[in-house]
């Protein structure tokens, strides 16, 4: 189970060499548990990416808040 994480990672990130990838896919076909692990890991990585985007949104909001008065005046006048 533990070593699957590393293998699955290489598979999901698309950095697995061709022959290894084919072997891994064959292994998945024969092993439903491995198939499930891959599915869960794929969703985990997706969650991590969405989380990363949310952190970026927070950083960008902080940039907006910290910008100078002239900038804020321009923006306010646009939406008047």
């Amino acid at each position: 189970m533990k070593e699957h994480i590393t293998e699955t990672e290489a598979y999901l990130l698309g950095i697995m060499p061709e022959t290894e990838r084919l072997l891994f896919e064959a292994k998945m076909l024969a092993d439903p548990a491995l198939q499930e692990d891959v599915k869960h890991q794929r969703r985990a990585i997706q969650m991590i990416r969405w989380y990363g985007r949310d952190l970026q949104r927070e950083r960008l909001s902080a940039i907006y808040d910290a910008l100078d008065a002239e900038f804020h005046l321009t923006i306010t006048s646009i939406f008047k």
Partner: protein
Amino acid sequence: MEDITALYRDTFPHVARVIKQLGGDLETAKDLFHDAMIIYMEKNPPEIRVSAKAYLIGITRILWMKQQKLKIREEGLSIPEDFYASEAEQPLLEYLRTAGEKCMQLLQAFYYEQMELQEMADTFHYSNVRSVTVQKHKCLQKVRATVKNTMLYEGAHN
């Protein structure tokens, strides 16, 4: 981040005028612009054929049309298919955000920001690359287990 700040300061007023013209308010303009900035930062500069400013205005406009469920005519610009987490994904994401914040921060640095391990060790105060690698591994295992349990739960309730 200075480049990003300069780009922000320079571009947002243009985006704001466009969104205002289309009938949007400041909050909407900000939200859509932030998403456009994120899409921009996720791209490799060589993939973008127009100026950063033109790209950001174009992407914000597309995001607006998507939000308003309007037909998108602009060509050559696209947003990643899985850019937004769907409603169905929100509860799990929220759970991971609160219950697993430390792990999620570490993992996003690697999988999203694509930080080097050495930089991660420095940022998260690990003594060396090996210990940050071990921790990243443990965290991924933990998040994967959470995903698995949630999917079992969802499966049982569908």
